[in-house]
């Protein structure tokens, strides 16, 4: 079998495995659902994830040790990951092949020439790593996930392509899933893909920060591509399909070589081989990082952090609608780890977890945020799925006991992700005198964090005068009632402060009372009566509410909800607490 066939099989294999892991990142117990599949494998193998979090947190989170495999193999063998494993690289190669396969040889040679601009990816890498390592005031953040191909493609498949395909088939999820701002994710993904029509592997050659990192790591690779003899006809066929634009025909740029091995395959005279010896035509081992570019990208990386933080989103101007899932670290620590890979958003069984837009701060783009208007029901009480799937512990793994404050966590209490507030200007029982309390009913805590206060309010035009009384029926002087309106079981007839009887039916000028109150016996002709509605008005017990958002999700005022959760009082940022410690 030809070596390029082996490489293609490897690419297809890893791409398939990758897609498979995206599909099985679904909660459930069937064999194709999440039940031990190593769905974070590619994110763990990604050394940019490991190095980025090391720079921002000064620790190597245990599962990310897998990146060492990639690092070691890259140091020894070069950028095999780009050419053989990376699912995004495989896509680029395939699209580039489709778009350029009919172009004449001269054109293809021109497309695969090394370009000076290929150094941009190193500056992208330096920019991101510098901002992850900003030493000042603990201000570091991790933004590699914006362009790191593994989080990028994970996010794109999880939040756009899979839900689009599944909305047509309905096999993965019973109800259609929604992701706010997903078209931006998709836009970046397709922009990266379509650039291959201009120049093959455009993203890999010019932008990819992971490729840049691996290029630097491959500086001392034991084996590399090169010419094994100086007797070369210089036919340039080796550069016809060169994926990395590393120019094997002349002085090969080792750092740009993605080990696609097309040169090996197309050389008729076996001049090119994968060998320990440097190419006999000479080789360029160092990545082309100019001193000026290095300093510029380093300083812009360092300054980007305080520049974005000028918005004050980590200070007093913190975004109160930014409700993070339970287990999320404090915001500053969270931003040092989150890859924006979307795994938590994908696994969330209720679909309440959403990719954030820039309204929560530039640095929060595509990080997970709860949107209680989307999905099947707020944050489910008995669920900790997102915390277990997070590859970097930006949402750290929590047990149900810890989430709910049970057992050994009883003293610490439950993890609050926010607090619900009743909007009394929109709530039906508060503002419109209509019975409701759906929020109270759905509060999943015991005892409930929402309790009610019973109020009897006289309805509009509800003050009436008694004209006649016969048994339980009271006729009124006024003929203004809408027939049947007060027969719902929620309306009462009141005379004075405490005397009240339930209304069972009414016409325009009469009401019928329920038998057991004996109110009719105390009334006389001409007495004033009032038609009152019995209301249960909801109150939030702020000491109990954990901010799960089920109340907000169920609130029948479906536009701007009449009970809304804000991040006030969240456990993860103690400085945002509302209550005094008791």
């Amino acid at each position, binding site marked *: 079998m030809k070596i390029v066939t082996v490489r293609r099989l490897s690419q297809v294999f890893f791409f398939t495995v990758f897609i498979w892991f995206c599909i099985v990142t679904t909660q459930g117990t069937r064999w194709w659902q999440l039940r031990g599949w190593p769905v974070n494998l590619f994110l763990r193998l990604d050394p940019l994830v490991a190095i980025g979090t090391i720079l921002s947190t000064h620790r190597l989170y245990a599962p990310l040790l897998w990146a060492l495999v990639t690092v070691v193999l890259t140091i020894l063998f070069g950028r095999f990951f780009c050419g053989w494993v990376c699912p995004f690289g495989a896509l680029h190669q395939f699209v580039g092949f489709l778009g350029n396969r009919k172009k004449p040889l001269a054109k293809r040679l021109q497309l695969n020439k090394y370009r000076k601009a290929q150094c941009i990816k190193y500056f992208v890498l330096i920019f991101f790593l510098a901002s992850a390592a900003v030493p000042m005031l603990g201000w570091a953040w991790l933004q590699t996930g914006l362009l790191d191909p593994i989080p990028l493609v994970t996010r794109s498949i999880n939040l756009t392509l899979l839900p689009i395909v599944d909305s047509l088939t309905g096999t993965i999820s019973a109800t259609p899933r929604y992701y706010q701002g997903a078209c931006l994710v998709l836009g970046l993904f397709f922009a990266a893909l379509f650039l291959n029509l201009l120049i093959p592997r455009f993203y890999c050659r010019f932008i990819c920060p992971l490729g840049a990192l691996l290029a630097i790591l491959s500086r001392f690779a034991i084996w590399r591509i090169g010419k094994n003899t100086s007797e070369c006809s210089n036919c340039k066929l080796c550069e016809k399909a060169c994926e990395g634009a590393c120019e094997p025909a002349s002085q090969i740029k080792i750092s740009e070589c993605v080990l696609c091995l097309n040169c090996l395959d197309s050389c008729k005279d076996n001049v090119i081989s994968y060998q320990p010896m440097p190419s006999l035509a000479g080789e360029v081992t160092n990545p082309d990082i100019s001193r000026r570019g290095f300093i510029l990208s380093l300083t812009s990386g360092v300054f980007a952090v305080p520049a974005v933080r000028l918005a004050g989103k980590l200070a007093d101007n913190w975004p109160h609608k930014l409700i993070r899932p339970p287990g999320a670290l404090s915001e500053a620590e969270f931003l040092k780890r989150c890859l924006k890979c979307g795994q938590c958003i994908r696994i969330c069984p209720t679909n309440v977890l959403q990719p954030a837009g820039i309204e929560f701060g530039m640095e929060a783009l595509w990080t997970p945020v709860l949107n209680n208007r989307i999905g099947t029901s707020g944050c489910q009480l008995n669920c900790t799925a997102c915390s277990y799937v997070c590859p970097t512990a930006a949402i750290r793994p929590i047990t149900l006991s810890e989430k709910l404050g049970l057992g050994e966590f009883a003293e610490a209490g439950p993890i609050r992700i926010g607090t619900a507030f009743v909007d009394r200007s929109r709530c039906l029982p508060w503002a419109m005198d209509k*019975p*409701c309390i759906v929020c109270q009913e759905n509060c999943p805590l015991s005892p409930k964090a929402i309790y009610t206060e019973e109020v009897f309010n006289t309805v509009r035009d509800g003050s009436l005068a008694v004209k006649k009384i016969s048994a339980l029926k009271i006729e009124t002087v006024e003929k203004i009632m809408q027939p049947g309106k007060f027969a719902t079981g929620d309306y009462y007839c009141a005379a004075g402060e405490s005397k009240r009887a339930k209304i069972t039916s009414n016409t325009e000028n009469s009401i019928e009372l329920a038998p057991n109150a004996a109110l009719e016996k105390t009334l006389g002709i001409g007495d004033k009566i009032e038609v009152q509605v019995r209301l249960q008005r909801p109150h939030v017990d702020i000491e109990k509410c954990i901010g799960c958002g089920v109340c907000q999700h169920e609130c029948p005022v479906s536009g701007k909800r009449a009970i809304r959760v804000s991040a006030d009082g969240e456990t993860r940022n103690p400085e945002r607490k509302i209550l005094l410690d008791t």
Partner: protein
Amino acid sequence: MTEQGNENFPRRAFLARAAKAGACVSGACAAAYLLYDSKGPVPASKKQQLVTLPDFSVPAEPGRSMCIATGPDRKQTFNKAIDSLGGIERFVKTGDTVLIKPNVAFATPPMLGATANPQLVAQVARLCYSRGNAKRVIVTDNSINDPASCFQLSGIGTAARQAGAEILLPKPTLFAHTTLSGGELIRNWPILYGPFEKVDKVIGITPVKDHHRSGASMTMKNWYGLLGGRRNIFHQNINTIIAELAMMVRPTFVVLDGTQVMMTNGPTGGSVSDLRRTNTIIVSTDQVAADSFGATLLDLTPSDLPYLRKAQAGGAGTTDYKSLKPVIAEVAG
């Protein structure tokens, strides 16, 4: 396609081109004629394909419409109750497709009693197959919490599947609009209709639960789980909607599980301390009667629940359950 100019432009080519142009012109005109809309948009049409749930009840037999059975074990108590009404064979015939509507509203474990008991659901399904010779048993509910999680965490999904039943999750395509004749609230409203297609018998299974808004959630309230859309607006008139649900669904029989009753913090519960053991299961062809008795398990009387009176007035059953001469049975513990 490229064309080359020629001094002797052939007539044939000209005619061919003219014919194509003519075809395009007539195509454009025809499209304009066919699509022409002289009126412009009008307010959304009220006419919609409406569905109606059929009557799933079986012929009444005097003295065999309700059984109140007491016993600590749900399975045995239910067996006793159904047998004293003539056995499941009276209700489920060979080849029937049976739809079970348990309360699977919340994603909570079975021990908290907020959802129908999984063993009870499985037992009903099993009897439908083993003694009723049912062809197919379907279990469905439009849960409040995430449906897949509800069926999983409540244990009903696994238990029902083990009993051979099929779980239907509430996919959007399964909903259709209905209007209850004589109803004021259920008008052109989406319900979970899909599972009812080609169904012969319908069984409701639900626990007795406290419900802050309406007083109690029992077999009639259980049909709330068939409503789709933003059904929570019905809480403004909870008594009428529960009564109308009872009028809309004419089940074969209902099972009201009062083995453990949720006395407080309903309908979600959340703690075993919200539950009280009352060791009672009611099987009834009259859901209003079942709930009227069920009220007593919550220390209420039927008059405390206005929806019972409304349902009776709507012809869904009787609040005077004693008039049905319920069979009283006991299973020793």
